[in-house]
């Protein structure tokens, strides 16, 4: 046996150095779990080191050199996570790529990053990479994790991770690991650690270069901020290529030494979360929305007594749940009721969602609906909001415990300075600020000032308590013709709270009034349809159903009432809406891979519909091209109805009685 | 608590205990119905036959004594003092397994793929055959069943409940038969064993598979005939348990076979395919009967126990034809 990590430096600066440290200090603690063949397989930190060492040495034997770029394509599989460290140990740079990007999207990234190897999950990804290999002159090797179906492929430049590890094991036996350890100790905090391509809402993806220093400082601060240590466990289920996943399940995990659990497959994530019950959980608002929708749908199918109990205790929770969580004083009677509710409703509910043991959870990426946010908080789940960016190694601001508001993103994170630019744009400076965009100095110059301040592109302001509030993308905030403020995301989020509404796109900038395009939630509305004997064959048919329009109109009306109550927003009430005949889809480019709407693209694609929203017509025939999952294209056509909404007279702000 | 309320509790408890007995018989029906789609009319007679056999072994009766005596002019009654109870139970069980085997061999095998009604008729024939066979083998007289189960009122319970009555009221405590309590405990154990068997063992899984789809079961290599022998053996086992309980309560006699008819309303209530349904159905019928007898009976002149169960089942059919736990009949338009 070779000596383990004998020359790890006292203060690690790179992740491979942390690996050596963890293999000593947490040798027998679990580092990683993966549900495979129905059982949770696990690796301790010591075992993780063994695996990564032979993997890494195998890669070296295949010719991976310092400074090389290597693509990682796939879902959250343990061996793909090992790749990061195995590659970094050799001084090479991992470039994770979204697993569901189609071949054309992938070409750009792999070519731009000049990757020499691609480590991919399975046959599907191998096929994808091989299909574009001739456009990638730098690419020399493709390495895969799952062997299924690949037996008969030409293995000249194709290897399984098993083979690579075997190669590494031989190398280790033959000449020991001194060279490998030496290569790790050469690693410096200022070295380039990873390149993360952002799926920008406009233009080609940009490769954000982060140094080890960027990531480690951010991770150390974050772990301290939320008191995270080696006893945490997290579920790795978000795209590897997303900075959030990279920081939460790689950087922070290596630094704190906590356990990362990989689900069995994307479809089993909910069940796996229930089994793992992570202590630290991160999810974009959408995940919380989906979880809540699932609960609501189940409740609608439940017996009357159960529903009554659920609503009663949810009312209790709404009243006292948050104060209890925040440590405020609450009457004794309410405490008893809440305690009873915990036993009867909240406990089982949290168990169902796999959030029983959650110490702290974050939502970020987009604004979360305040009602959804409060729902989770009131159950006693310490859900918080943070504001971050790839360019900042995630953390810009976060909510400290006890200072949680639904509508802010908290105070500046440790070591982060924030200022508001004259045009209302939020800017920040921190140790996490990225090195620059890979091979794109022009974009770097536009985003990062000489003295390291970064433009976020978001409009926001500090409230009286020193909390940052984000209104919208700076370039998206506009004005209606009459001069009233128009913040599309603000309106969209209000509508998206309704479980029946999946996605909303609001229009109104430099127009006469505000109008919206709505996507219904197929699960929720489908369920409603089943209960109400509304028959439908497709999304399209359901979306056009008069009773669905009726239901959505009620939701819109309620939002208008809400808006009417707010001084700044009363002018931008929704005057017309339509329910779109197809679901907005990342495959059609309507959503980003992280499922944010691409506003300008949608505006262009559905120009006739938007025109119809403003020319007074009550219906419009459109034909839309769609891309199927396998890449084929087709088109669907529909007659989309447009509905007028009455406006609500703006209320004068009323002084609300003691809150 | 007032004596009136305590009486209500007592009636309910006794109803529950009686219900357990119904459940036991209904359970046998459900098992066979689930696995083979046969409504086994002979289930009640099987309980009788099992009890007769058990008592016969226990007391050392010579099987077919009447027949032998009539033909050979002998005077055989008993061949000895009989075998210990435990052994007698095992032997009776062995006889039930043998019976299951013979039923498969002689009856079911020849009726594969016939209409359910034909199979139902076959079980009616089986019922009469077994009844006659029991008579021929062990004689027609009423026999006491003594397998060492406790019986008689529980004094302890009487004492406990007497304390519950309000001060000064004349209340002598509740009567509860320890035999009924034992029966309930045994029934719970039986159901647990059956549940574990069907959910967690390979054979149980095969049984469920056959119940689900015959053709598919065949294609994966399950031998239907083996399964049938197993199912009928289990039904025989349940019949034996039911026979012991009923026998210990009211003696082993031919009216025992009529409890099969009592099981019918239980099945309608619980659904023909649900084991929990059989249990809950039995309990509801038991409690319903006792309550009706005690509170409605005096108004209509008593004897309500004989028909109440059927009325309840009929009323139930109107609202939930698939039974409490039966698979829901969904009709889509």
């Amino acid at each position, binding site marked *: 046996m070779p000596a383990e990590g004998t020359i790890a430096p006292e203060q690690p600066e790179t992740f491979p150095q942390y690996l050596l440290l963890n293999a000593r200090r947490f040798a027998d603690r679990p580092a990683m779990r993966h549900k*495979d*063949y129905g059982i949770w397989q696990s690796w301790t930190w010591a075992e993780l080191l063994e695996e990564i060492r032979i993997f890494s040495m195998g890669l070296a034997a295949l010719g991976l050199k310092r400074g090389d770029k290597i693509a990682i394509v796939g879902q959250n599989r343990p061996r793909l996570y090992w790749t990061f460290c195995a590659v970094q140990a050799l001084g090479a740079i991992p470039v994770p790529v979204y697993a569901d990007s189609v071949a054309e999207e992938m070409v750009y990234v792999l070519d731009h990053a000049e990757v020499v190897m691609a480590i991919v999950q399975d046959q599907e990804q191998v096929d994808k990479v091989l299909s574009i290999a001739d456009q990638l002159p730098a690419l020399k090797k493709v390495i895969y994790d799952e062997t299924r*179906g690949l037996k008969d492929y030409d293995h000249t430049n194709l290897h399984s991770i098993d083979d690579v590890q075997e190669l590494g094991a031989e190398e280790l036996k033959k000449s020991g690991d001194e060279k490998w350890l030496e290569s790790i100790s050469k690693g410096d905090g200022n070295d380039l650690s990873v390149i993360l391509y952002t799926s920008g809402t406009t233009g080609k993806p940009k490769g954000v270069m982060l140094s080890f220093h960027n990531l480690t400082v951010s991770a150390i601060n974050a772990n301290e901020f939320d008191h995270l240590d080696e006893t945490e466990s997290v579920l790795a289920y978000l795209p590897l290529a997303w900075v959030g996943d990279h920081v939460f399940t790689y950087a922070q995990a290596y630094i704190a030494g906590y356990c990362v659990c990989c689900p069995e497959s994307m479809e089993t994530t909910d069940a796996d979360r229930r089994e793992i019950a992570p202590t630290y959980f991160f999810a974009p608002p959408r995940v919380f929305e989906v979880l809540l929708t699932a609960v609501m749908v189940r409740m609608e199918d439940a017996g009357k007594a159960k529903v009554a109990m659920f609503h009663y205790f949810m009312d209790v929770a709404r009243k006292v749940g948050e104060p209890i969580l925040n440590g405020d004083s609450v009457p004794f009677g309410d405490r008893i009721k809440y305690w009873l509710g915990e036993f009867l409703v909240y406990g089982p509910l949290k168990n169902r969602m796999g959030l029983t043991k959650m110490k702290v959870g974050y939502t970020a990426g987009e604004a979360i609906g305040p009602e959804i946010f409060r729902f989770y908080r009131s159950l006693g789940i310490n859900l918080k909001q943070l504001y971050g960016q790839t360019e900042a190694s995630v953390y810009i601001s976060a909510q400290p415990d006890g200072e949680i508001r639904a509508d802010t993103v908290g105070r500046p994170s440790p070591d982060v300075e924030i200022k508001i630019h004259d045009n209302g744009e939020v800017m920040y400076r921190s140790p996490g600020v990225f090195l620059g965009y890979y091979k794109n100095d022009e974009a770097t110059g536009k985003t990062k000032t000489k003295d390291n301040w970064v433009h976020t592109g978001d409009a926001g302001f500090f409230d009286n308590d020193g909390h940052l509030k984000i209104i919208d993308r700076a370039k998206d905030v506009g004005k209606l013709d009459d001069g009233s403020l128009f913040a599309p995301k603000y309106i969209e989020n209000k509508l998206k709270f309704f479980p029946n509404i999946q996605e909303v796109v609001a229009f109104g900038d430099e127009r006469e009034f505000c109008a919206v395009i709505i996507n219904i939630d197929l699960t929720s509305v489908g369920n409603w349809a089943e209960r109400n004997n509304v028959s439908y064959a497709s999304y399209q048919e359901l979306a056009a159903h008069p009773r669905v329009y009726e239901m959505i109109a009620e939701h819109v009306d309620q939002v208008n009432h809400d808006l009417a109550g707010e001084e700044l927003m009363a002018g931008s009430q929704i005057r017309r809406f339509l329910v779109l005949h197809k679901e907005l889809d990342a495959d059609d480019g309507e959503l980003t891979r992280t499922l944010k709407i691409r506003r300008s693209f949608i505006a262009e694609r559905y120009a006739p519909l938007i025109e119809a929203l403003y020319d007074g017509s009550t219906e419009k025939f459109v034909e839309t091209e769609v891309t199927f999952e396998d890449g084929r294209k087709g088109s669907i056509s529909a007659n989309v109805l447009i509905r007028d909404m009455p406006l609500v007279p703006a209320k004068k702000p009323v002084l609300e009685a003691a809150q | 608590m007032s004596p009136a309320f305590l009486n209500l509790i007592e009636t309910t408890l006794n109803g529950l205990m009686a219900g357990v007995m119904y459940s036991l018989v209904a359970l046998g029906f459900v098992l066979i119905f689930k696995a083979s789609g046969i409504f086994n009319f002979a289930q009640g007679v099987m309980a009788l036959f099992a009890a007769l056999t058990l008592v016969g072994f226990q007391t050392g009766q010579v099987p077919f004594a009447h027949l032998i005596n009539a033909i050979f002019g002998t005077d055989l009654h008993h061949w000895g003092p009989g075998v210990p109870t435990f052994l007698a139970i095992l032997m009776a069980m062995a006889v039930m397994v043998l019976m299951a085997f013979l039923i498969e061999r002689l009856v079911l095998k020849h009726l594969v793929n016939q209409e359910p009604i034909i199979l139902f008729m076959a079980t009616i024939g089986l019922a009469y055959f077994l009844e006659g066979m029991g008579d021929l083998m062990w004689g027609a007289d009423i026999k006491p069943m003594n397998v060492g189960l406790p019986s008689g009122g529980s004094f302890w319970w009487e004492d406990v409940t007497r304390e519950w009555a309000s001060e000064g009221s004349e209340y002598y405590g509740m009567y509860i038969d320890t035999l009924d309590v034992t029966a309930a405990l045994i029934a719970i154990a039986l159901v647990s064993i059956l549940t574990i068997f069907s959910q967690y063992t390979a054979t149980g899984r095969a049984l469920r*598979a056959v119940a689900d789809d015959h053709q598919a079961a*065949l294609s994966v290599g399950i031998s239907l005939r*083996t399964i049938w022998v197993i199912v009928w053996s289990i039904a025989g086992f349940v019949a034996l348990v039911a026979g012991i309980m009923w026998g210990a309560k009211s003696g082993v006699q031919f009216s025992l076979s009529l409890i099969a008819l009592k099981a019918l309303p239980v099945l309608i209530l619980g659904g023909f395919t649900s084991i929990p349904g059989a249990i809950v159905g039995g309990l509801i019928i038991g409690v319903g009967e006792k309550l009706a007898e005690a509170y409605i009976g005096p108004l209509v002149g008593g004897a309500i126990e004989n028909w109440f169960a059927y009325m309840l089942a009929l009323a139930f059919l109107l609202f939930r034809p698939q039974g409490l736990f039966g698979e829901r009949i969904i009709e889509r338009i």
Partner: protein
Amino acid sequence: MNAPIRPDTQLHTRADDGIATGDDLLVTENISLSFGGVRAIADISFDVKKGEIRAIIGPNGAGKTSMLNVINGFYHPQQGTITFRGNKRRRMRPHEAANQGIARTFQNIALFGGMSTLDNLMTGRITLMKRNMLWHAAWFGPAQREEIEHREAVEQIIDFLEIEHIRKTPVGRLPYGLQKRVELGRALAAEPALLLLDEPMAGMNLEEKEDMSRFILDVNQQYGTTIALIEHDMGVVMDLSDRVVVLDYGRKIGDGTPDEVRNNQDVIDAYLGVPHEDA
């Protein structure tokens, strides 16, 4: 060290029976079958070689499913013999066929609808249980140890067919395409020497068909399972199969590689030339 199980290690086809790849695994000779006066199959002979994918095609009512039913023992032919793994026979009961290593799926899906995916697959291994049914009435001791072994094998299949997420779901609640996949899984669980697939892609959309084709090819390549399948989609048949036998009105009218069959005049007349609904 807690060594995780790796795929591709444990699932096999049934016992090495001395038949080499490419040799006859199944030979049917002069099979005739009629129901009452109606003749379903007339004097059909063909063979299935070990390791190949053999397709049986033909218009509706050509006797394809009847042929499959004869092979797995649902029907007993009036004439002819079947030689499977060297054993010649006239008739056999279905559970005996299963015991000899013939597993199948059905055109109209015959799953145990009330049981979970896992239980369905476990039931598929019934012929591989070493002990008899009485033993397996117990849930402790050797019976349980054997249960665990079978569970491991079944987990391999679950992984292989990517049905982890429905492991515990009652199959009756699954969408059609997934049910088909579970049914394939149940047949695979028996580690069959011969896998019979009756229209594995009937009623599927294009994407599901592609998935299913991939699974069938993978099964054949990875485990070396011999497959005989009936399929209507000509594109799929020609892509998947090594050899094709063509039936029409209960007679064999063609036999050979997809190319040979495609150019066979009888076949063209009877089947391919005539526009066919499902083709």
